[in-house]
């Protein structure tokens, strides 16, 4: 395990927080667009948030001095995260369609 530069601590905490925060923003906007509470155009913002999230993740990976291979895995994980809300929304929607008829 590499020694970290104390100067990078702030960046580490900030990027880690950003990963989760922008993750929430992505999910939030995505869901609101899907249930038609806001205009479909906003979906661009959702994916932008995901982009910022992915960037934060790469930054976090770099700042904690992960090896390049691990950083690649992190990016792959972010592609997974891109799909998670789609899947969850699909589940929520299907269950509501099945059990509610109003």
């Amino acid at each position, binding site marked *: 395990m590499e*020694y970290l530069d104390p100067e990078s601590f702030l960046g580490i905490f900030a990027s880690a927080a950003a990963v989760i925060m922008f993750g929430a923003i992505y999910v939030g906007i995505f869901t609101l667009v899907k249930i038609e509470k806001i205009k479909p155009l906003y979906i661009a913002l959702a994916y932008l948030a995901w982009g910022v999230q992915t960037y934060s993740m790469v930054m976090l990976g770099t700042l904690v001095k992960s090896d390049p291979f691990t950083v690649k895995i992190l990016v792959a994980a972010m592609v997974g995260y891109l799909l998670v809300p789609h899947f969850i929304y699909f589940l929520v929607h299907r269950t509501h369609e*099945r059990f509610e008829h109003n």
Partner: protein
Amino acid sequence: MSEDYKEPESVWTSNRFWSRSAGWVTGFSAVLLILLTMDTLDQITIGSAKDLENKVTKRVPSASVINYKVTYEYSDVRGHEVPVIGEKELFFGRSDYSEAEANALLDKGKLTSQAKNCMNCHTLLGNGAYYAPDLTKAWLDPAWQAGGVMQGMTGTTSVDEAMSVFLQNPDKYASHARRMPNLGITPEEAKGLVAFLKQMSSIDTNGFPRNFNKIQGSTQK
């Protein structure tokens, strides 16, 4: 059940599918945790006096480690500091504690650390409260070594004596405004606690706390 109930159209909306998934995922995780636990328990079981004599490295060395000198050194292979058990060293004037004697001391110390509630001010292995310094490597801390503030204040010439004197009257030897209270620690309990602290310093904590040895050599001029 309402009349508009329909047979499941797909697994995704099937209660049965998800309750089974929950069971399988939980079961699988639990089994994995148990397997890992079995391996870990094997690795963290306390070593024996024989291991120390034969220089067999254990993650948690035997209480007999009190008979030896403990240092914390950088390992190129591991990429962080690891405890190194060296030559024999006097502990309260002796270096020939039998395994039973050493175990009794460690036991006394660990019991005392619980009875005196150490963990609600200090951290041990980083767990506990944050009102007082971490005790993981206290035995190796520069403050307690020759030339450190604690030996000077307690008028002692070794780490074990300094710790023992301090622990029996901590409020009298305050190095900072935040003092340690008097917990009525007896000489026997103090000796046990010092053994406990020395043994804890020999545990392989994967390099925690970070930088410990590096700074001792570099900035502690």
